[in-house]
């Protein structure tokens, strides 16, 4: 398996998860990286992505794993990837592993940086959200109330940014819901384009391991 870490910035925030998958398939085909295909009626490239980002949010750490049918030098893969990917994408790391790292199942926590010049004025209140936060939101026209306190692992306000670490996956707190709450309660005027997902983590045995470190450690 080849596992590639890539950034999705600029216009990439306007591209949906399914369109990114399509773009990755086309990138591999253009790059001449030979990937295995499923053998069903609708044959498709065997690639795995990590979980989708809400529309409008950039990412500096996204992953795609592919079942290569030919061995490649990882540096060569990155070069080919970057020469053939759309402008909004850039490969930054590649590792060949024996088994599928199954990152989408393992990653259960993500870090985000939110640009906000006003947040510093409400630093204490924002940082206290990890002690208790109940969100009210609408889903498919239905009003929901959810206690998300245990989904916030950390939230820190710095000079011009808010940095937070939120649970992801099965127990999920969407960053767009949190930013909407921050706007509603603290009037911060955060736009989705002010948010960048800068890390994906695996939380095991009480320790957060950055997904890159995890992949680096794989055989």
């Amino acid at each position, binding site marked *: 398996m080849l596992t590639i870490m890539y950034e999705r910035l600029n*216009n990439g925030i*306007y*591209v949906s998860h399914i369109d990114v998958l399509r773009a990755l398939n086309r990138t591999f*085909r253009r790059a001449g990286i030979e990937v295995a295909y499923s053998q069903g009626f609708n044959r498709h490239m065997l690639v795995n992505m990590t979980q989708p980002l809400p529309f409008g949010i950039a990412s500096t750490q996204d992953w795609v794993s592919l079942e290569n049918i030919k061995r490649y030098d990882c540096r060569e893969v990155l070069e080919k990837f970057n020469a*053939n990917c*759309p402008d909004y994408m850039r490969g930054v790391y590649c590792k060949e592993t024996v088994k599928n790292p199954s990152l989408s199942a393992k990653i259960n926590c993500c870090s985000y940086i939110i640009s906000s010049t006003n947040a510093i004025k409400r630093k204490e209140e924002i940082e206290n959200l990890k002690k208790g936060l109940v969100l009210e939101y609408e889903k498919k026209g239905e009003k929901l109330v959810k206690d998300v306190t245990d989904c916030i692992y950390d939230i820190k306000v710095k000079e011009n940014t808010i940095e937070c670490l939120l649970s992801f996956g099965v127990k999920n707190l969407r960053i767009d819901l949190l930013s909407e709450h921050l706007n509603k309660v603290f009037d911060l005027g955060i*736009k989705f*384009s002010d948010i960048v997902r800068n890390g994906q983590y695996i939380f095991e045995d009480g320790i957060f391991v950055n997904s890159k470190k995890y992949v680096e450690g794989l055989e």
Partner: protein
Amino acid sequence: MLKNIDKFLLEVEKPARYTGGEYNTPNMTKPCSVRFCLCFTDIYEVGMSNIGISILYDIINKSENFVCERCFAPWTDMGNILRRENIPLFSIETKKPLKDFDVVGFSVPYEMSYTNILYILDLAKIPFYAKDRDDSYPIIVGGGPVSANPEPIIDFFDAFFIGEGEESDVKFLEIVEKFKGNKAKILEEASKIEGVYVPSMCVFENGRTLTKVKKATVKNLDKAPFPTKPLVPNIEIVHDRSVIELFRGCYAGCRFCQACFFYRPIRYREADTVVGLASQIIKNTGFDELGLSSLSSGDYQDIYKVIADLKKVTEQENVVLQLPSLRLDSFSANLMSSAKRSSLTFAPEAGTQRLRNVINKNITDKDIEESMKLAFEIGYRTVKLYFMLGLPTETDEDILAIADIVRKIKYIYKEVTGRRDLNINVSAAMFIPKPVTPFQWAEQISSEEMYRKQNILKKELFPIKGVHYSWHGAEISVLEGIFARGDRELSKLIEEAYNSGCYFDSWTEKFDRVKWFSAIEKCGIDIVKYTGGREINEVLAWDFIDFGVSKKYLLAEYEKALRGETTNPCKQNCNGCGANKTTACRQFATEKGCKEC
């Protein structure tokens, strides 16, 4: 260049429609003497699937001194934001307002997108009428399939490209480069280019243009440029695949079909050229599907060779090869087994042999039965059937016979497979007489009559299990009929309809019947004048265009139609339509081509 649009993009559906940055985008910052903005009168997903847009964009950007950018009609959400924020409509690539370009060109694919021309001009803050635009505005040009009769919209344009624009577009831009800043001189010189219609340089009397304009035709399609590095969209588009054009023109000669006569003479790309281009396109785009584009790909002379060779390329690259629009009579087991078996599309167009003879659809009931049998034997389970209602000489018996065909197909399926799970999708379009066809003199039925005929078929098909019936709207067909054979009087109707809120009329959810018909009433437009039958000796609004195919031939075909006589496909023998006067027609019955070549 506009900098402030990013903050609004997340307010709209599919913002990637407006951001650009597609893979294979050419260098937009190269020094250039003429900047051209190519507009399409529908949304991004439709326009990006248009092969004409792709060809012109490629040709102009390959020219040393010219840059071509794109602009698609923004969907209503974006249009509202542009209005609210007072932002002029801009190009996708550099976000430059349209009014700052040297030339703005519209590709107009169908009549019901006419109001979108005004929508784009309105958002771009450019006056609608050519007469109201001085030298400070870009030159506004048009083209596309509606150039068979541009008269209803010609008042909005400085010039219109009739026919194929591959060669005339670049010649036009060379003139713009030479006389930049002097619109009158540019238009005067441009009127000398074959295929360029400059209304201000033409004699116009009694509601008709009298100066002759010759349709532009690519002489050698095999050598004609075709984009090998087309843009790869960042979002899914209507035809999300690589496309290669096999040939232009059509051998069949169906008498209702404008494309068949408008795109004559028949010119094709050699099989090796097709395969070579396709390999490059697959490599340069990474698309996982390859489609073959032609009016009737099954009639391509080397279709078996091309498919066999393309299959080698596509299988190696894990690309799916798609075959579009196969004619029933070109159908074969070999071809079918080359494609993925999802559903099969056939267009008998009429229910009875008599009416099929009238429209010159050269297929018989026996052909239909044999082809269906073959199709079911190799595993097809879904069939799409296309018919037309309101054809000249049509009777209620012809409509009832459509249901007979459907019942017969169900019976054949049961016979062949022993099963009853066949899905049949029946689609009935309304006949619209189009310019440059033998039926250009024919009458179009009224909307009331359309409803009556649709209901006959609906009632007849309703009891048949597994049949899904869809039909084209009556009112929209009447409007399309008005514009198809319309004249300059209709520009005021388009303006009135747009001002009352009509645009994106080809979108069912956006079409507003009430607004359109009140605009017709307000403008005093006589519907029957446009949809009614025409006198043979009448000067038609598009008679000033030399299409190659002669009016005499079209008339002879019309008379044969009324007598129920057929004409052989020009695959078998040349019928002398006249399209080969300046460009050789490659009907391949003989090595030399047509008898007149």
